[in-house]
């Protein structure tokens, strides 16, 4: 009986907390978007003026078009790159394909803002390295590439986002029962007909969901539109919301109306995505033990696929990393040359480390990243335990609510939280605490995914064996469940701490001087034109990320095995 009560207590507590994190911002966003004046100001009333103002402006439709254009471009290009690499690594005999996974994961470590900056440094018409080199080589009058264009934006976004496509499509290729294709061959169809009539239709749901998820990510993206789109005068929803708040005086109502619009688009996308993936699971056919991977012998073409793959990795990994490293060691930005090489210096690093705000930013980012990753994983482990291991009523609701923030673009979450903490009498606006709450909200969905996946793997009998051996529930949790959860917990923790450390789009609406974080500092330095300093900061950020991931792995392994 006592056991039941404590379970119910945990459930109610978790529901209330998740409701507070995920539900309150949504309600406040909707509320804010129908208020005539900023909160707290006297005379505010209900109005639809914000929506009228937003929708009856011609600019709105440019915004919509740009956002859609950018979203479609991004998802198409990421899809092409990621699917090609996935196909090469899963289905062909291309040499060195084992390296692909590692190479594809590196862009995960590079924060979006840094990769955007790297591509500006490479493709800007004035200072872009590639432009200068190509111009010199071919004797061109003007720069061949211009990053400050829609195509430039799409490129910078896609080359950063493709690893997700690679992972998802690799899984899709891997999970497909290859005897479905072999059956077509034995039925007399050629390789091409088989691809066209069997492989493609079978992969269609997976491909569509991958396209959709990248479309949403494109629409939600902030770094590329802010750093490239704004100077290029190409506005999308996210930058428009940002500017509505950053102008003086801020127009919270208008930002709210735009944010609601963006939220509707992304929620629709997420809902469709959910439906497709559910259907996809039903589509899955029995794969008997007859399953074997079907690897296509490409003959000499395997060198072509190898070359193309490494060209992609060169562009996605080596070039950006090189340009960041190079720029972090030179006094002013320029093409690598003898002369500049002689001037290489640690000065940028000195500057960053002595920058008054830097220490605060490093500390804040570190605390936020470690704190949010730990709290999210603890919270979602409890939730996962409730939803997977108990039969309490209400657990499905809890599971769904934990997922809600996945549909909230970062900038929308930022706007919502402004409304929440300007209205509610909780005095944390402008402190690091509001950022912590924002991060927990935002990363809850990733946490719950990792936690329930590993919770499901823990057989009930493993727990029961410990109980019958005389262990208490708490001992069982500590000695059996926790160690078994550890690998999944660590993986989730690493992922969340990485994305927390590079978070920009939510933080940028919620930070104050004392709660500055690294990504914001990079953004400000960049806006101030201090390119070489940004690069030094970026290199330090990446090193910090690697060190954290490494430490977490070590610690996780120790806890998981030693106990």
């Amino acid at each position: 009986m006592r056991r039941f009560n404590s379970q119910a207590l945990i459930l109610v507590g978790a529901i209330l907390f998740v409701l507070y994190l995920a539900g309150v911002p949504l309600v406040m966003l909707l509320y804010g978007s129908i208020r005539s004046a900023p909160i707290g100001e006297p005379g505010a009333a209900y109005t639809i003026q914000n929506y009228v103002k937003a929708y009856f402006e011609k600019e709105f439709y440019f915004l919509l078009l740009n956002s859609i254009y950018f979203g479609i471009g991004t998802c198409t290009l990421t899809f092409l790159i990621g699917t090609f690499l996935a196909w090469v690594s899963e289905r062909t005999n291309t040499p060195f394909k084992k390296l692909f996974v590692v190479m594809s994961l590196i862009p995960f470590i590079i924060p979006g803002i840094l990769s955007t900056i790297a591509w500006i440094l490479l493709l800007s018409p004035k200072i872009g390295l590639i432009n200068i080199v190509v111009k010199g080589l071919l004797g061109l009058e003007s720069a061949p590439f211009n990053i400050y264009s829609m195509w430039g934006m799409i490129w910078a976004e896609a080359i950063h986002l493709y690893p997700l496509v690679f992972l998802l499509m690799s899984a899709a290729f891997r999970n497909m029962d290859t005897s479905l294709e072999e059956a077509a061959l034995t039925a007399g169809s050629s390789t091409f007909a088989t691809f066209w009539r069997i492989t493609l239709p079978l992969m269609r749901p997976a491909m569509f969901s991958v396209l959709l998820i990248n479309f949403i990510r494109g629409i939600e993206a902030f770094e590329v539109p802010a750093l490239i789109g704004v100077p290029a005068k190409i506005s999308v929803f996210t930058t428009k919301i940002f500017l509505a708040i950053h102008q003086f005086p801020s127009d919270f109502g208008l930002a709210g109306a735009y944010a609601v619009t963006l939220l509707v688009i992304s929620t629709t996308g997420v809902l469709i995505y959910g439906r497709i993936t559910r259907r996809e699971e039903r589509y899955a056919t029995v794969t008997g033990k007859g399953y074997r991977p079907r690897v296509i012998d490409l003959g000499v073409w395997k060198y072509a696929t190898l070359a193309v793959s490494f060209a992609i990795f060169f562009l996605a990994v080596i070039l950006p990393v090189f340009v960041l490293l190079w720029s972090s060691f030179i006094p002013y930005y320029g093409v690598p040359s003898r002369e500049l090489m002689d001037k290489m210096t640690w000065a940028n690093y000195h500057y960053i480390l002595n920058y008054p705000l830097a220490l605060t930013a490093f500390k804040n980012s570190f605390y936020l990243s470690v704190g949010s990753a730990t709290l999210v994983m603890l919270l979602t482990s409890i939730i996962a335990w409730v939803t997977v291991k108990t039969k309490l009523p209400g657990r499905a609701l809890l599971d769904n609510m934990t997922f809600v923030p996945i549909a909230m673009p970062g900038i929308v979450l930022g706007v919502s939280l402004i409304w929440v903490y300007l209205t509610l009498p909780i005095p944390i606006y402008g402190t690091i605490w509001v950022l912590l709450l924002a991060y927990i909200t935002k990363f809850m969905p990733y946490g719950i995914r990792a936690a329930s996946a590993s919770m499901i793997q823990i057989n009930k009998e493993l727990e029961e064996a410990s109980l019958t051996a005389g262990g208490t529930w708490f001992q069982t949790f500590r000695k059996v469940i926790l160690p078994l959860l550890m690998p999944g917990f660590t993986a989730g923790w690493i992922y969340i701490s990485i994305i927390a450390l590079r978070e920009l789009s939510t933080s940028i609406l919620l930070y104050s001087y004392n709660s500055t974080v690294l990504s914001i500092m990079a953004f400000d330095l960049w806006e101030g034109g201090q390119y070489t300093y940004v690069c030094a900061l970026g290199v330090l950020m990446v090193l910090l990320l690697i060190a954290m991931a490494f430490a977490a792995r070590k610690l996780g392994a120790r806890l998981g095995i030693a106990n």
Partner: protein
Amino acid sequence: MADKRDMVQIEALEKYFGEDKERVHVLKGVSLNIPEGSLYTFLGPSGCGKTTTLRCVAGLERPDGGRISIGGHTVFAFGERVYVPTNKRPIGMVFQSYAIWPHMTVAENVAYPLTIQRRSKAEIRQRVGNVLKVVGLDGLEDRPAPKLSGGQQQRVAFARALINEPKVMLLDEPLSNLDARLRVQMRSEIKALQRRTSITTIFVTHDQAEALAISDQIAVMHGGKLIEIGSPHQLYNRPKRRFTATFLGLTNLIDGKVLEVDGDSRPGKMQTKKGILSFIPAPGLKKDQAAVISIRPENIPVHKEKPQSLDNVVEGTVKEAIFMGDAYHCKIAVGDDLLAVHTHPFNAISPGDKVYLHLDPKSCNGLPAEDTEGVDESILGD
């Protein structure tokens, strides 16, 4: 050796998997001929290379040596670099997972081989109707394929393999995903279907009961090599190899040394720990060779009194007698060994009884004891 009436001929097939250090030799010179119109089974323990051989016939795997021909046409020859791709071979295949395309209806699945050949709509409709009737699925044409039961999916897979009237049907453990009852039913249906259509059929299984029930001929495989080929009757009653005797059904092995042997038609004599026993020798068995006698539990009559007029009688004590309904399954200690014996259910027998076992020479198969040719040693351990 090659006969005109052989539909499939496989010669010295070699196959490796993996690269460099992980390279494993999976098929080690497999040669066999499959007579036209027969139901031919590849039987062997898991991992022995049955599926691989079948896939080589289908062209889904490219062998590393040897030659394969189907209906007199060479479809693969290593030396001459002949390789006919799968879709150009006159075959139909049923996969272990059935491989029913989930994005098509029953009719679309079955019609696929004809659609590929761009046959007319009318012809397709008619032939699909016919073949669905043959497999007992008429009326389900427009059902989406994933909404079928396991047994129905399997029938669809058969229909799809049959519709093009292939010269050879390839079946890779088609029954292993069905429950026990359905398996027995489909087993007889497959056999009946094969009789009716007389399409040469290769059937892969690791289930010896299934193989005995269904096949015209069985090729027993082990460790990538062919062990023995024969009819179910031959292989069960007159195995020539120790592996065949132990893999097909239950048997007792009695170690010994050959004392006398004269060809393989006349009984020989063997010195064993249970005395001198007569047996039917396997071909090639020589005097003084280490050998075993294999005798099936159901071929050992049990007597309460010592029968005077018979050879090959040994004395034993019943250790265990389990009533199974259709027989008693007994363990009877003879010397240090336990023999498995199945007796008639009316013949009440209980532990502790002293009995006499008649090891009828006609049921005693003398096989070479050293039978490692093509056999993985680890399996011989027990």
